[in-house]
């Protein structure tokens, strides 16, 4: 089984529009959404038969005020400003890192560490019958990397058990823990570039991370005609950096219209004419 991951660095460059279209063309594939705090792939894939699982990672401190003697040792040692005295000592769950330092130093064992509910993950079938794995991190939670790892692990196990040939994953923006976690065991990264100053800058950072992790990649330039000179620059950069150029997609009102009605853009025949050759390049690169 192979895994293709779609990344961009910058948000809003068209990852989900393109990833959902490639999933549609691949047919026999598992769809994953690793953007666990702002998951948009299910909006287009319209899943049904959703199975829902709680996800817990890490702990939160809790102070029992009956036993607390107000010595303040925990608050003085906490590096995350997570313990306030208002007027009795209490933990601010959003600030608590779950390190347990307070529980270790409390002279009267008034602090307990409680398992933290971090979110949920889901296994479903898309409206065209493809297996879909996605998740919802609770707002403000850490552990997005762990939730990505959970989604990846269940999707890969399912894929192995059902002898699926391919996973296509829609990645998160940025270069932090969720992206690092998304890159594990991936065979090919598709970079969706936007030909703007910030799009190019962010693309270079995420491709450096990809290179550090030893994963090969190809690049698609989206809305290339909005800035042809920057598009040429990105193409030249890709060639110099051993990143295969997979194709360019022009700015298209039609793609925007498809997304506006929550439909997979690549299912539209005109858009398919644009994207199908790119998908063929991706398949060639995957086996090369």
């Amino acid at each position, binding site marked *: 089984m192979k895994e293709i991951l779609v990344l961009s*660095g*910058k*948000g*809003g*460059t068209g990852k*989900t529009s393109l990833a959902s279209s490639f999933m549609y063309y691949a047919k026999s594939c598992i769809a994953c959404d690793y*953007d666990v*705090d*702002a998951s*948009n792939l299910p*909006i287009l894939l319209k899943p049904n038969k959703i199975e829902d699982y709680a996800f817990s990672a*890490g*702990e939160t401190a809790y102070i029992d005020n009956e036993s607390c003697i107000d010595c303040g040792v925990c608050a003085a*040692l906490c*590096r*995350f400003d997570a313990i306030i005295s208002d007027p009795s000592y209490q933990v601010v769950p*959003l600030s608590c*890192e*779950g*390190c*347990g*330092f307070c529980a*270790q*130093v409390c002279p009267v064992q008034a602090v307990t*560490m409680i398992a933290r509910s971090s979110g949920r993950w889901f296994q479903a079938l898309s409206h065209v019958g493809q297996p879909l794995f996605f998740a919802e*991190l609770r*707002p*403000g*939670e*850490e552990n*997005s*990397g762990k939730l990505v790892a959970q989604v990846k692990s269940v999707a890969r196990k399912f894929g192995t058990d059902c002898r699926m040939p391919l996973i296509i994953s829609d990645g*998160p*923006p*940025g*270069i*932090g*823990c*969720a*992206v*690092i976690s998304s890159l594990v065991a991936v065979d090919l990264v598709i970079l969706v570039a*936007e*030909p*703007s*100053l*910030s*799009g190019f*800058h*962010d693309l270079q*950072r995420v491709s*450096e*991370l990809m290179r*550090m992790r030893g994963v090969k990649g190809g690049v698609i330039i989206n809305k290339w005609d*909005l*800035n042809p000179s*920057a598009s040429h620059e990105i193409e030249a950069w890709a060639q110099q950096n051993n990143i295969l150029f997979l194709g360019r997609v022009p700015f298209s009102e039609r793609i*925007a219209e498809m*997304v*506006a009605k*929550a439909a997979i853009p690549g299912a539209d025949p005109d858009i398919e004419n644009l994207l199908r050759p790119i998908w063929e390049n991706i398949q060639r690169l995957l086996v090369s």
Partner: protein
Amino acid sequence: MQIAVASGKGGTGKTLLATTLMRVLSSYGPVLIDADVEEPNAGLILGIKPDTTHEVNRPVPAIDPDRCNYCGKCAEICKFNALIVMVNQVLVYNELCHSCGACAYLCPQNAITEIGHPIGQIEQTNLAENGILITGRLNIGEAQSPPMVKAAKSKFGAAKIRIIDCPPGTTCSMIESIRNSDYCLLITEPTPFGMHDLELSLEAATMLGIPTGLVINRWQGDDYTIGELSARTGVPILARIPFSAKLAQSYMKGRDPLEAMPSLSFILSDIIKQIREALS
């Protein structure tokens, strides 16, 4: 006054809004903090290079082999599995360490000191037109953004006006970015993706109790369902920035958005007026 500019979805116009707000407020000597430390773009958009750069470190444990007796206490208390104690060796995984300091404090042999682990840079630029840009830039390969966000936000805490350009999403680094703000501007686009992510980011801002207003970007005469969200939650729509191909193209090339869309300065002044009213 500290204004956070955030969004759930990426690419909806946070940096556009934050940098143009800064330009409009230049008479107050504003400080713009680019807290999108994974992909900081405000300096690019303002077309400036940093005047000064300094490295940011966070503490991680270092083991003194002369004192350590390999008792295993540090590995036992570390909730992040950043320490592994073997027969005559302790392995430290800096990338897993959350810098809580528990191991160093609790080591029975006093064999652990904390040393700096570089996580990124803070860049400072003093703008020609009055104002300062602080950029937090996370090192590539570093997994934890919140310490970098904190480091960037610790600068110029006393400035009259601080604008925070936040990372997308609703994770811990977004919370860290909007924390302690007087007002949160959530910018979105009127699409199913924009709407879905807006609701999540609004939940995050509400959890922190920060007064919030919405800005619809690339508006084409239709609020989509954002009007219903506003009516349901009482969170006002402060402005609608019309879609403009000219603005999109000139912004991509790094040109001043206020030149491509002069009416933007009125929209921004009106946003500021509404924030002042909401906070008075």
